[in-house]
């Protein structure tokens, strides 16, 4: 019972984020609305650079949302809208920039770091395995 109240209370706490940011009503076509929401959640607001335009109250963000709404309302695809934005603001406007000569380090870094981690992990594991076979000194002897 208490748990249920807590969940309800938690939901109320975050009600604010559920308020729509656009002055216009959502698209009637729910698939279109979903793809609009998905898109604006991946477009960077250039004024407040670590926010998406879906999160930002900056005037430029609302202008961009209006522009994107209008384009999508007229049947523009996601690719067309993306192209429109990149032609004006560059790849920086995308939260998921394309893989190309300027971004290979960005996309490659996690894989590279994971590989290093894997190598270190395997080496430590091997060292431990050979160590346990040799029956190293008991811990209390080392401590003393």
């Amino acid at each position, binding site marked *: 019972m208490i748990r249920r109240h807590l969940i309800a209370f938690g939901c109320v706490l975050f009600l604010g984020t559920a308020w729509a940011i656009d002055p216009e009503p959502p698209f009637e076509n729910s698939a279109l609305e979903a793809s609009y929401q998905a898109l604006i959640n991946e477009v960077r607001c250039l*004024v407040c650079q670590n926010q998406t335009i879906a999160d930002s109250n900056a005037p430029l963000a609302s202008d961009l949302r209006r522009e994107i709404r209008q384009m999508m309302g007229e049947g523009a695809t996601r690719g067309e809208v993306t192209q429109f934005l990149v032609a*004006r*603001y*560059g790849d920086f406007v995308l939260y998921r920039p394309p893989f190309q000569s300027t971004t290979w380090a960005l996309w490659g870094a996690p894989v590279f770091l994971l590989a290093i981690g894997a190598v270190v992990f395997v080496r430590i594991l091997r060292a431990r395995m050979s160590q346990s076979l040799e029956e190293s000194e008991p811990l209390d002897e080392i401590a003393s």
Partner: protein
Amino acid sequence: MWRYLMPIGIFVVLAAFFVRGLSLNPRYVPSPLLGKDAPEFELPRLKDPGASLGSQDIEGKVALLNVWATWCVGCRQEHGLLVELAEANDVPIYGLNWKDDRGAALGWLSSLGDPYVASAFDELGEVAIDWGVYGAPETFLLARDGTVLYKHIAPLTREVWASEFLPRIVEQCGSLPCPLVESE
């Protein structure tokens, strides 16, 4: 040996990334418009809403397009320099009044001076989006053939004018003030 060199190596690599990363200006987003045709536009004039200002007015000229607004502090900062540049009259300066109030903008020009040949009134910011504007003041340098030669984001300063704008203008125009029609 490795066990001591590794941390130092990792530290050096990280430090190099930080030195590079922290010395970049995150506010500077390079414009994809550089070297490309300036976007076409047509807007009502600030001072004369009945008349329009657009690409065809700027066509064939080496010109500045300055994005400004009365709500923009940096614009006030650079305004004196713009007025000075307009007096020198080396190149015509056009204004793009961005998401502003017409009354406030007219008041600004009459009290601070009007460096612009004319200003376009972009109330909804639609033309600004086409030009990739994201933070006023921004100043575009347009070539005679209608391409964007250079874009400066932030208030214009004498240093930037001397180091970035003038050399490009001189290269385009040959002599100053910039001749209006290209000599055949």
